[in-house]
């Protein structure tokens, strides 16, 4: 079992692992509220990728990964993930309201 330190690497390798064998791959979330720790695991029973965190900001990143896996598992491994990631990026970016100069 390998703990991956980079979130982006974990996401990329997890998606690759799923696409290589969608029938065997599963995504597991383990949450301990008393410790405030979250562990994510993606495995196809041959290779295992894990990511652990106790940071609140990274728990929010999990939302994106959840949506990716929900979409992959329901629509199939060939689905275009830019629809999922693109929509969330537009939702996540708040409209910038700068201090305009009053003229």
């Amino acid at each position, binding site marked *: 079992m390998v703990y991956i330190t980079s979130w982006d690497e974990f996401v990329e390798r997890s998606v690759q692992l799923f696409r290589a064998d969608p029938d065997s791959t599963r995504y597991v979330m383990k*949450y301990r509220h008393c410790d405030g720790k979250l562990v994510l695991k993606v495995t196809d029973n041959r290779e295992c990728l894990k990511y652990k965190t106790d940071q609140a900001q990274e728990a929010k990143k999990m939302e994106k990964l959840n949506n990716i896996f929900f979409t992959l598992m*329901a629509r199939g491994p060939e689905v275009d993930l830019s629809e999922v990631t693109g929509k969330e990026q537009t939702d996540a970016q708040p409209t910038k309201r700068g201090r305009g100069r009053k003229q």
Partner: protein
Amino acid sequence: MVLLQLDPFLNELTSMFERSTGTGSVWVTLKRSSLKSKVVRNKMVTAGEAIEYKCLIRATNGKKTISTSVCISYILNLSFWFISVLLEPSCRVMQVSSTVECKLRLSCEE
């Protein structure tokens, strides 16, 4: 293992998280499944029929296991549930990074 509809599953999972706040862990597993045996799947493949896949979700606290299957139309509901039940309470418990704490401290001092 109990196979539930989505709403009862979410209710049961919510109570599972609430019961495990003091001690214990909750595991949630997502897997792609057709909910059909290998024999039936192979027959469908040879017959040229399309196999409908769903997202199988299992949850356990180590003592009790519940499960449900979700098709594409319910995925948005599930995503909202994860945000409200899991992510928001967990964010209150989990640590805020030191850079964010510094910014908050500086803004308070100003």
